[in-house]
């Protein structure tokens, strides 16, 4: 147990019964605060510390007992030592020795910086470290006429994943997931062909560079039209992904294509966090021309950890054709 000493002594020039006190300025949360006092000749001293955690109404008492010679000791129990602090005053019999009920001495109580950060991070997710998440999306670039034939250019994507807030800084989160991305898009000859992959698996590490600045790195393996392929995804984000934030990132999937995006999310409308995303991408095939997707997301978190969301957007590779994107998502935190 880490002890924090408070020396209380009677100085040579002090009269008997007076208390000299050097209060601590800070204490460690969850650890009892031991007070070691030195009293004068008064063997019958009734020095008492009256204490309470900040925000608590009732005062508690702890009595000083003699340890040796003039040294007396009292202990404030661990359950009263909690952030942001505690306050106390000393009473010697009927006399105030230091502070008073209306003017108590305040001691800041800290936790280790990483523990405090974990507390804040957990508070943001209401103590729920785990999440399952599913997102489905339909993306249509519009049918374009090639050699007098209308050729579709669309795909759908399903992402399902599980994440866990590890909070072992700088590693904040682990995430495992699966993606299915299947579509139809014109090839070089103007014929429609199937693109994408049936199943890809991925593993993502979320690094909290500093509190509120996040870097997510993902490794992807997929069985594409051309066989085994690797992919990766990285995102840098300021703020909480479920609330107000800005993020930018890149995703690359061999054979399937690459995507770059910027996203601004805002949670300033109660119960309806929203986001705007601007995305440049050649999905579902790396052979296709790069297009742009303009996306708008809205979600609603329910009590209990359920969160549902919807997405609408516009996708086009040029001005000759464009189409609608739409998606639905849900997550459950526990």
């Amino acid at each position, binding site marked *: 147990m880490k002890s924090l000493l408070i*020396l209380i*002594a009677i*100085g*040579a*020039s*002090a009269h008997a019964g*007076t*208390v*000299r*006190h*050097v*209060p*601590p*300025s*800070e204490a460690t949360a969850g650890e009892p605060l031991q007070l070691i006092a030195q009293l004068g000749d008064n063997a019958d001293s009734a020095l008492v510390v009256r204490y309470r955690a900040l925000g608590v109404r009732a005062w508690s008492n702890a009595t000083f007992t003699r340890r040796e010679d003039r040294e007396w000791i009292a202990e404030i129990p661990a359950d009263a030592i909690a952030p*942001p602090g505690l306050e106390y005053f000393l009473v010697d019999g009927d006399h*105030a*020795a*230091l*502070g008073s009920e209306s*003017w108590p*001495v*305040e001691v*800041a109580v800290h936790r280790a*910086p990483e523990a405090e*950060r974990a507390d*804040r991070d957990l508070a*943001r997710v209401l103590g729920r470290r785990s999440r399952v998440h599913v997102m489905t999306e339909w993306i249509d670039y519009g049918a374009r006429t090639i050699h007098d034939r209308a050729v579709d250019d669309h795909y759908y994507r399903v992402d399902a994943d599980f994440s866990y807030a590890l909070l072992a800084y700088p590693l904040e989160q682990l995430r495992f997931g699966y993606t299915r991305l299947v579509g139809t898009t014109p090839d070089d000859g103007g014929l429609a062909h199937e693109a994408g992959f049936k199943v890809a698996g991925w593993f993502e590490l979320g690094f909290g560079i500093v*509190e*509120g*600045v996040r870097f997510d790195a993902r490794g992807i393996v997929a069985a594409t039209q051309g066989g085994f392929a690797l992919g990766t995804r990285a995102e840098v984000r*300021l*703020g*909480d992904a479920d*609330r*107000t*934030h*800005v993020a930018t990132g890149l995703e690359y999937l061999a054979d399937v294509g690459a995507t770059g995006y*910027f*996203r*601004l999310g*805002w949670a*300033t*409308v109660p119960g309806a966090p*929203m986001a*705007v*995303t*601007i995305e*440049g991408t050649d999905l579902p095939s790396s052979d296709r*021309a790069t*297009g*742009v997707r*303009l996306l708008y997301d809205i979600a609603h978190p329910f009590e209990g950890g359920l969160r549902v969301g919807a997405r609408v957007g*516009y996708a*086009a*590779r*040029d*001005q*000759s054709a*464009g189409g609608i994107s739409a998606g639905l998502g849900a997550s459950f935190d526990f």
Partner: protein
Amino acid sequence: MRVGMAVLITLALAARARADEIARGVVIRKEDRAVYVNLGRAGGAADGAPIRFKRPIALVHPVTKKKVDDWIPLGQATIAAAGDRLTRVVLDDELAAEVNVGDVAEIYVTVAATPTAAPANADDTPPPQIDPHTQSVLATWAQQSGKPLAARIAAWEGWLSGHADSPYAEIVRTDLETLRAERDELVPRRIGQAVALPDAALEHAAPTRATDGRAIPLVFVAGAHAPAPASAWLHYRAIGARTFRRVLLAQDGDFALRGLIPGEVVHAPGVEYFVEASAPSGATAAAFASPDQPAKVEVAAPPVADAFAATHRSRMTITSTYLDFGNLDKRTGDHTDRVAWTEADVLYRVGRTLWGVRAGYGVYRGSGGYKDRAWSDAMPAPTASFSYGYAEAELRAPTDTGPPIDLALRGVAGVGTSGFGMGIEAKARVGDPDATNLSFLIASIAEIGTFGDVRFEAVPRPRLYVGMAIGVTDQPNEGDLGVRVATDFGWRVTPWLMPTVRASWQGRSADHSGVGAGAGVVFDW
């Protein structure tokens, strides 16, 4: 009763002061270290006789609240030459620095002692009972007479630290300010270079870190074998600040002195402090840490996540604009030259260095773009079309003074008639983006062309927004350069809603010009 008692004590003090026979003069001239006093031999001056100097000072009695003419001893010297009407005194360097024209000079004149009449109330009648506050302040006041300036200040500061809630505290503070001003005039204060104060060190458990914006309570305790200082000041400042602020420590019991660093200065990277204590004699010294080596308390910067947690920082803007460069062109033929665009975006004001981030969508359509070309069925006006999204970050230069200076960078990605294209826009702004500001913008977007403008925005009335812009562009087809002059008005209907309208004139030549208009709506929440 209280006031009456104070008057009696004051009169008693005055009676004792008149017991000596003293010749008084005034310093009427000063030349380097020599001063001339309007006292001559006839007034009792003699070569080699001692002479003392005082500084008259006007104070307010804390109980009677009446003006009291008092004095502060400056020092003593010897008369160098006594004339009939003037006396010349050569001062040492230290005293010469303090004595000024107008100071009082006194010479003791030996005369036969004359019994002083007893005060009228000096009888056996028990003194009237007065309350502890009055008793305390009168006792301190009574000890002041003839004391040096530093001792008076220390005594009153000590009294204040234990009687901050006294009804006399305010008037004592006023007197203290007078005394301090006098001290600063006599000797400019240099904290930490004061006379050493034996046993002045205070014991203190210094905090190592603190929470942003939260006041830091501090307790200092006098040494076990040393008398408590007469008074002590806590000096504190934010790390990086040039000057310290100070607060008088309050006494708590026999040993403790307590103070508070206010939360308003408790910000990252931290605060630093020291304590200066005064002995009853007025001598001062650093009693815990020092100005050169203050104690430091670290304050962690608020996490970035918190910067995104605040509400009432969001704005959604939807605008639609139509510009015609040719509808005032009176020449024959088809001189179509117009553009129209609609944008919708969301701004979130983060604060700090990253003032704001914005993201939005836009659709741009245009045709023409040339000042002298006439279009026909065989040669129709070229068209431009661009659907795009954009993301913008506005950075603010770190400055404590002057108006804000921002730099905004916007990336644009979209698709035009020839496919995917990108653009960039840079904007420098001086002034508050939500109030009066001046901005310079330049933009280049694939397929469409370039655009630059100077824009002034103001809020001349609480609900009225005005924007004026002068721009140059070759849009919509990277054609001929043209000038655009636009004025925007907005009227804040509610705190969260502001419709806007825009009127513009634009032209690429004297013959080829037109008017345009636009409208929009701004939501703030």
